[in-house]
């Protein structure tokens, strides 16, 4: 064992143990670490947003380079604060409306391209999918899976005849998808624990090389 001489490592280890203490039950150490985290996060966000965004993208061009046009986004941004003045609070709708309109305009075509056109294209059986026997097999499985899952979510027609087994197959595909997601979630959570245990055993206690 080779304990760390670094006080910051000791502080990090203490806060880690404070959070882990919640596994036994809620306690004052856990609450202390939780509140500290929330407070520091808020302060950090404000500081880094100013230094990385407001200063280089607004303060420098407007006040140091004299680009007057930047007054427009500054004024538009300041309208958000009119929310605190009830008499002119309605002005907050202007920047919100601008963001909604602009955001929808740029996002909708991109969503179509990303999630509908390219995904539909990827589901179609084309000659290149059958370059090898296994890629061809998986392409067929994907096509069957997509069609059956869509049939499961088709509620405008009674499930009988061919629709019933297809919808049931769709449920199996859905369950496989949920199972894969759950498996990955477990994997992720275990990884987080490994990271903390590596820290406690490595930099803090010096039991393992890290």
């Amino acid at each position, binding site marked *: 064992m080779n304990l760390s001489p670094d006080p910051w490592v000791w502080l990090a280890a203490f806060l880690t143990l404070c959070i882990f203490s919640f*596994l036994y039950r809620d306690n004052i150490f856990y609450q202390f670490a939780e509140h500290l985290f929330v407070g520091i996060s808020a302060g950090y966000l404000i500081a*880094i947003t100013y230094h*990385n965004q407001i200063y280089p993208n607004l303060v420098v061009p407007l006040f140091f380079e004299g680009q007057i046009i930047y007054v427009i986004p500054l004024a538009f941004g300041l309208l958000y604060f009119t929310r605190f003045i009830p008499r002119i609070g309605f002005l907050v709708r202007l920047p919100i409306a601008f963001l909604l309109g602009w955001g929808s305009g*740029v996002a909708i075509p991109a969503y179509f*391209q990303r999630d509908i056109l390219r995904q539909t294209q990827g589901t179609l059986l084309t000659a290149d999918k059958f370059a090898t026997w296994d890629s061809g097999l998986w392409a067929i499985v994907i096509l069957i899976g997509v069609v059956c899952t869509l049939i499961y979510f088709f509620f405008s027609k009674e499930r009988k005849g061919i629709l019933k087994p297809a919808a049931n197959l769709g449920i199996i595909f859905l369950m496989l998808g949920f199972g894969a997601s759950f498996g*990955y979630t477990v*994997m992720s959570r275990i990884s987080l624990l*490994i990271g903390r*245990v*590596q820290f406690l055993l490595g930099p803090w206690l010096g039991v393992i090389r890290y």
Partner: protein
Amino acid sequence: MNIFELLTKIPRRIIFLTIFVAIAVPLIIPIGMPVNVMPKSEQVYRAVDSLGPQSRPILISCDFDPQSMPELYPMLVALLRHCFARDIKVILMALWPQGPGMAELALSEVPPEFNKEYGRDYAFLGYKFGVTAVLLGMGESMRGVFPLDYYGTPLDSIEILDDVRSYDGLSLVITLSTGDPGWRQWLLFAQSRYAVRLGVGVTAVIAADVYPYVETGQVIGLLAGMKGASEYEIMVQQGGYSEGIRRAAHGMDAQSLGHLLIMVFIVLGNIGYFVIRRKK
């Protein structure tokens, strides 16, 4: 309470303690279980490996925070080692406010191993808020979005950014992402709109969401969680690029035993449940 009732009601503190032991022991006494490299991880490696000193720079976006460090930080370190060993120029940025801390930590560790110099071999643009405007803006003018780098230097004064005006000046973008904003937005705005070559490294919890996009070729490859990070570390080591610490690979024994234990608990709980139900 008989044995089967006990199986369905194992105290949660016993489960926590058992999992902690199952994870801590293999970290102290490694078993050396093999790690198989998956094709989707290899695709990311091959994409980076196909580049060299004459290639345009790679952009790595650190879209994660310390909570995702065990999964994504080893990916970042392994990617940087791979790039620097091949003399590929690297640009870093972040869409998460905590991302700069992660990037700076990696930059304090990896460039000295390869004698790389800031400005000539790598640059760090820092963090920007407002993902849509940032990613669309970078497609038009990198300098419009990032007039200064993270340390306050104008981009025009940074050597490796001389020819990087937009995504056209990049050979590849890799996002290490733990949620939103992250890989979804890179795919939505940078890939769909500007046809950027995009590689993705994500936490395991969202890996399943990325698979459809890898299948269609919208994403060139996927590093999924600590397993993906360990695969990349192993490929970098087998490629003879680095012998540095492989954090994720060291954790894979613990990962495997942790999974095994959870499977055992699930099976035991189900045995207890079905036996009790049959008796009723």
